[in-house]
């Protein structure tokens, strides 16, 4: 026997597995043993029918994707490598739900081995043997095969049964399909058909597994007189145990023989039905999830797609406006509910669940793009109040915090979907009046607040030194101040403090004064692509005319767009967030620290610095260097809960009767006992939390403070500030 067919065992070891007197060739499973011809013929007809149905289903799905817009992918090999890593490690499934991930791994690897096993038998029986007369599925290889596939089957069935338990008895809220964007009276509110599909899926697979084991056990009982079968039964341990049980309840060889056909057909037909309908059911995630993971974008929410402003339309209105990649992404959703649970809008009761946006688009695609011809254009509309349409208020509820994108185990990119649909709304002029005001302010004045552009640097007049004008002289560090640091009274103080830190540390820095416009991060996320391009190009033009080494900004929103999006328009600059710069300066000893702070705080990751740009360390390192002790909130780093101000929501007041995301976050912080401050690194977070700390009644206990202000306190700069601040306060009275 060739070594390769014995899993590396030597002949003598093989001989120990096969009893003396048994020819290895006889130790195998005879397929279709004693089957009448008509059964064989029927079996093959059913098999071919299932494969044809599967092939047609795949064709229909691919045709559906191809009805989306064209898109060419970059870095396919990188995506594939990453996807294989995801599959093998199951890391995307284990995140924040370890047990579900582990159990899914049992099902996945069990299924994969069972599939490989079945395919191996088909390869020998239907292809190699008929053509070449060559067999390999016998003897020791057969026994090892039996053992491995038996264990795989056990893993598979155990995993499925746990999933049933999870659905039925754990009753996780994220597995509840009731929608926040529909009223209970609406037909698609609870989508009970999804639950039926889930159960059908689980039961089908469980029954395929269980009937497989029963069939195995039944064969053992039936052929118990055959030593080449019975003596090797423990190589299929599950079958052997079951056979023992069946015997114990009185199953005889004869009865087993008669039961066998029924079981066999049940098992076979279930499996064929599963294969045949797979492309039209939840089961298709076997393929679509892998594909979706492989075609992921590296920064789907941090770098939004460009648009052709000269085209007749912009953004997505119809399902056919989405590109094939997006249609495939939405087809990968397994309704696991992780995005639903992570979404700040959904959590605070806004009519948005990222899961439901994805599922709505999927249903629309399935209903309109799976047939031979495309339906009338009205049936393709993605935005509207009908069934399988995304509502306008849903789109405006999004804060583009990317919590959904971050946690999706199958790599769905929700944020670009929402922004593209917003682009179409903006093009039609449809938006909240408050957003309209902000955008008109930017059109007219270059800032969202509506202040005169000449007053952009007015905050700097309170300093006892003059900040250099980066437009007029070369500077090492160009500080892009941003709208909120320029105009928001609370954050102006942070801007002044940051200026003092840089000045005291002897850093050569300058600002653009009234030459600076809003960076446009939120303009883009609202969907006003034309205005975004305009401000981006203006800022790039201004920046290109200055001499500097690096841009720094205290605003993570500006940081994000400058870093990730300006390059799309030719603005390639080195950009640092203030906390990164401070961390660097502290490490090199350039910042003269007078004392350490003995404070206990909690730290809130802003979405734009954290999730979107993966900078979790720098602000924490800065605090550690100051001696500040952080107690983390339960949701931190990639799971941080958005303050609610992203995606242009800072411009839209949240309804009074609702508990705002920032208030929920403040409750979370207030659960921590011995802290006295809530540390932020973003002007928009500061704006939100300054309100939330008061409205939740935590303002006596918790101070909302910027990382920058804590650095200044260690430099004893806060001792110098009061005079200047008093002046300001007096003026604002």
């Amino acid at each position, binding site marked *: 026997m060739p070594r390769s067919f014995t899993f590396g065992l030597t002949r003598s070891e093989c001989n120990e597995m096969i009893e003396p007197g048994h020819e290895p060739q006889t130790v195998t499973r005879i397929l279709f043993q004693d089957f009448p011809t008509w059964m064989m013929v029927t079996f093959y007809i059913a098999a071919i029918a299932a494969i044809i149905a599967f092939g047609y289903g795949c064709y229909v799905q691919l045709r559906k994707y191809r009805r989306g817009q064209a898109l060419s992918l970059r870095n396919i090999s990188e995506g594939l490598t990453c996807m294989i890593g995801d599959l093998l490690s199951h890391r995307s499934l284990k995140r924040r739900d370890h047990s579900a991930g582990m159990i899914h791994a049992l099902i996945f690897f069990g299924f994969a081995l069972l599939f490989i096993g079945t395919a191996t038998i088909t390869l020998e029986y239907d292809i190699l043997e008929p053509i070449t007369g060559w067999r390999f599925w016998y003897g020791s290889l057969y026994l090892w095969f039996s053992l491995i596939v038996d264990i795989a089957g056990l893993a598979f069935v155990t995993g499925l049964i746990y999933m049933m338990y999870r659905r039925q008895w754990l009753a996780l809220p994220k597995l509840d399909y009731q929608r926040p964007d529909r009223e209970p009276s609406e037909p698609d509110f609870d989508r009970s058909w999804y639950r039926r599909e889930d159960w059908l899926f689980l039961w089908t697979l469980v029954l395929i597994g269980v009937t497989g084991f029963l069939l195995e056990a039944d064969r053992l009982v039936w052929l118990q007189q055959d030593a080449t079968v019975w003596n090797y039964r423990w190589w299929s341990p599950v079958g052997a145990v079951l056979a023992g049980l069946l015997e114990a309840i009185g199953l005889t060889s004869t009865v087993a023989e008669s039961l066998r056909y029924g079981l066999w057909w049940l098992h076979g037909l279930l499996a064929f039905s599963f294969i045949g309908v797979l492309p039209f059911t939840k089961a298709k995630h076997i393929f679509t999830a892998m594909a979706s993971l492989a075609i992921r974008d590296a920064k789907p929410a941090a770098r939004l797609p460009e648009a052709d*402003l000269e085209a007749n339309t*912009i953004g997505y209105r119809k399902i056919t406006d989405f590109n094939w990649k997006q249609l495939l992404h939405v087809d990968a959703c397994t309704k696991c509910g992780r995005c639903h649970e992570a979404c700040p809008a959904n959590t605070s009761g806004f009519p948005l669940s990222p899961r439901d946006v994805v599922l709505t688009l999927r249903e629309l695609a399935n209903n309109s793009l799976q047939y031979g011809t495309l339906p009338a254009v009205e049936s393709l509309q993605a935005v509207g109040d009908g069934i399988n349409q995304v509502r306008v208020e849903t789109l405006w509820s999004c804060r583009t915090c990317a919590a959904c994108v971050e946690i999706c185990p199958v790599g769905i990119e929700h944020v670009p979907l929402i922004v593209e649909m917003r682009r179409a709304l*903006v*093009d*039609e*002029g*449809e*938006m909240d*009046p408050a*957003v*309209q005001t902000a*955008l*008109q302010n930017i*059109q*007219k004045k270059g800032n969202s607040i509506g202040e*005169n552009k000449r007053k952009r640097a007015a905050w700097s007049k309170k300093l006892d030194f003059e900040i250099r004008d980066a437009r007029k002289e070369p500077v090492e560090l160009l500080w892009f101040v941003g709208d909120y640091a320029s105009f928001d009274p609370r954050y102006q103080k942070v801007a002044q403090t940051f200026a003092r830190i840089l000045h005291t540390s002897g850093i050569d820095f300058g600002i653009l004064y009234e030459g600076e416009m809003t960076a446009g991060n939120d303009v883009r996320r609202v969907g*006003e*692509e*034309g*205005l975004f391009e*305009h401000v981006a190009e203006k800022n790039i033009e201004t920046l290109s005319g200055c001499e500097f080494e690096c841009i720094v900004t205290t605003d993570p929103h500006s940081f994000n767009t400058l870093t990730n999006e300006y390059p799309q328009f030719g603005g390639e600059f080195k950009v640092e967030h203030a906390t990164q710069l401070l961390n660097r300066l502290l490490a090199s000893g350039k910042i003269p620290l007078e004392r350490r702070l003995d404070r206990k705080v909690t730290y809130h990751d802003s979405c734009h610095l954290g999730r979107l740009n993966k900078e979790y360390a720098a602000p924490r390192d800065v605090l550690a260097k100051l001696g500040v002790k952080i107690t983390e909130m339960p949701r931190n780093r990639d799971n941080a809960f958005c303050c609610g101000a992203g995606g242009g929501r800072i411009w839209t007041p949240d309804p009074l009767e609702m508990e705002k995301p920032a208030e929920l976050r403040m409750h979370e912080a207030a659960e921590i006992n011995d802290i006295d401050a809530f540390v932020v690194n973003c002007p928009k977070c500061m704006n939100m939390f300054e309100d939330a700390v008061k409205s939740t009644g935590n303002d006596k206990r918790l101070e909302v403070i910027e990382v920058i202000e804590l650095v200044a306190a260690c430099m004893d700069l806060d001792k110098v500030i009061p005079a200047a601040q*008093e*002046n300001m306060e*007096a*003026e604002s009275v």
Partner: protein
Amino acid sequence: MKILVPIKQVGVLDEDFEIRDDGRDVDLDYLDFELNEWDDYSWEEALRLQEEFGDAVEIVPLAVGPEEAEEGLRKCLAKGGERGIRVWDDAMQGSDPMAVARVIAKVAEREQADMVFAGALASDHGFAQTGVSVAAQLGWSQVAVVSKLDYQPGDNSVKVNRELEGGLEEVLSVQTPAVLTIQLGINEPRYASLRGIKQAKAKPVEELSHGDLGLSDEDVGEAGSASRVRRMYLPEKGQAELIEGTPAEQAERLVEIINELKGVA
């Protein structure tokens, strides 16, 4: 049916501004121009009728003003409408609402418009006269300060609401052709995206002079106006003073003021 919508680019004052040397207006350097807020609403009302009834309704924005006024037309055209009209020449400088109305009336005749939707007033000078003067020139019926409008193409009358003092609501039926001056809040004007504004540059704007409309030099400008701005000035500031400084300094200044007023000094 054709609706003519006269619009105006109004000057918005900077915080610090100066009066022109002749003392009759604000120095242009200190003005930012934007579309008069009321005209956003009148254009939106026209757009809605146009969207509701399609080709049965044509809407045309009209600006009587210099080149800067074209920006306002583009903003309107970004939202809808296929063409605009701008009337201006040097002789029209100094036109008061009467003279401007004469021009608008001529355009309405030339366009064979069925209705004119004007903003109730313009935020810069606030005469609230242009719209009603157009009606007088044309001999059409008119309703001022309309807060709700109900019209079906083909009807020879339009139903409008007006808000009166004390929360009263008045409903009127007006014969067409008519001039309606539109009040704020009649609708929610949509947003004009920057992309839309840029694309609207491809839409034609017909440029006319007063001569093209058959008006003589005496009909426009100061010659054709019934009123003339004599002087524009900032009244003396009131007595309010913001007291700055430390509490002690503030108290000191307060005592000083009290003594001044009492004539102690």
